[in-house]
């Protein structure tokens, strides 16, 4: 689906990280020094943040929202819509956005709902926020996006345990002078490549789903832990991301040389660099910001802007920005807009 939505702007972005640091070097005990160093070199991930038990994505997002209220001088009563995007909600039900409406003291005329998406989730969330505004129903949307992936990864699964970090974000989307181009796609035939298969209604928890099993590579997990087929996900990214970026550039009539920043989902350094090479993007316009935070799933794009946004602004790179998330589903989505007037807040800790 391709569309341009007018009269909306991304006013501010803030993020929150749990303060516990996990150094990937710690895994040397489990896998050997050489193996771990090779992994770090390939992924670019030296460390990541992990929540303590009981801390949820909503807690990280709520703190990020408070930053927007306090430092951005925004009255919570002026918010008329809240969208929460995550694969790690507080409860099976009710929706976390509804609980956050209460926690953040928003009016009860606020529209609130969740979107259950992962790495494509930030762009999906922006799209949803833009739709709420362009419908005429809302003027100011609080978009809360994040994940606590460290809580769903098995500690002895080498295919995932050195990749994912936790983060929450808050983005203020409101009526304004900008426009945003969107391109969103879906391929559910790949649903098994990145999945937690048990604990829903297809495979409810039972005596078998909780058994730890070793796969053919020696990785340990239960059916309640994240499973990722790294090779299939890599193939998917290589196949689908370049055509989507090129389509989006055509939608906007932008040349890639005129785009100041391509904010790609920070899956790992290898895939981001490969995509930059394949699409022939100038390396300076493809930031890599995951060395100390890892793959933060749905939060990776807002976290990139929280970390690098002010520098990108000073370098004059935000006039034309492309954002692209891709992953679980399979789902992938890209947006093009100006972020020249966006306020970026550096990450705060929880």
């Amino acid at each position, binding site marked *: 689906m391709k569309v341009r939505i007018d009269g909306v702007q991304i006013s501010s972005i803030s993020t929150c990280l749990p303060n516990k640091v996990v150094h990937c070097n710690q895994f040397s005990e489990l896998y050997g020094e050489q193996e771990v160093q090779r992994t770090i070199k390939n992924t670019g991930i030296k460390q990541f943040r992990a929540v303590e038990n009981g801390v949820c994505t909503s807690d990280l997002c709520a703190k990020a929202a408070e930053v927007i209220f306090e430092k951005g001088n925004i009255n919570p009563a002026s918010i008329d819509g809240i969208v929460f995007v995550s694969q790690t909600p507080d409860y099976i039900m009710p929706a976390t956005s509804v609980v956050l409406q209460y926690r953040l003291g928003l009016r009860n005329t606020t529209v609130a709902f969740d979107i259950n998406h992962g790495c494509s989730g930030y762009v999906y969330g922006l799209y949803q926020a833009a739709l709420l505004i362009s419908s005429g129903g809302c003027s100011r949307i609080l978009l809360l996006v994040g994940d606590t992936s460290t809580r769903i990864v098995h500690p002895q699964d080498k295919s995932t345990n050195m990749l994912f970090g936790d983060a929450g974000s808050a983005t203020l989307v409101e009526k304004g002078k900008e426009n945003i181009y969107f391109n969103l796609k879906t391929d559910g035939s790949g649903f098994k490549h990145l999945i937690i298969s048990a604990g829903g209604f297809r495979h409810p928890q039972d005596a078998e789903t909780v058994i730890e099993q070793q796969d053919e590579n020696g990785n340990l997990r239960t059916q309640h832990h994240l499973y990722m087929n*790294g*090779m299939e996900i890599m193939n998917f990214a*290589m196949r689908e991301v370049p055509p989507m970026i090129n389509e989006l550039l055509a939608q906007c009539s932008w040349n890639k040389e005129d785009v100041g920043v391509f904010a790609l989902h920070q899956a790992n350094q290898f895939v981001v660099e490969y995509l930059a090479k394949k699409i022939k993007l100038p390396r300076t316009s493809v930031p890599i910001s995951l060395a100390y935070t890892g793959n933060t799933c749905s939060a990776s794009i807002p976290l990139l802007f929280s970390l690098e946004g002010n520098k990108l602004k000073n370098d004059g790179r935000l006039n034309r920005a492309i954002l692209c998330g891709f992953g679980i589903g399979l789902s992938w989505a890209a947006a093009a807009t100006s972020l020249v007037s966006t306020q970026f807040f550096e990450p705060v800790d929880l």
Partner: protein
Amino acid sequence: MVNFETFLNNFKNAISIEGIELGELTPDTTFRELEVWDSMNALNTLAMIDFEYGIQLPADELQACQTILDIFEKVSARVNAK
């Protein structure tokens, strides 16, 4: 037409690790037994195939390969079918 010598060269470049001798690679080399072979080199191989040949080799097809010739044949088949 996919040339085997070029393919072998591309494959060597994809999987090389500094400080580890590759040794002589032939069509019959069982690549999984190479010291350099690991899950990262599986990804490097898929990326090389995508970049050099414009196709994605499905993970289960790579899993089914035992020798370098096996990979070459699967890549050739997909390139010819394009």
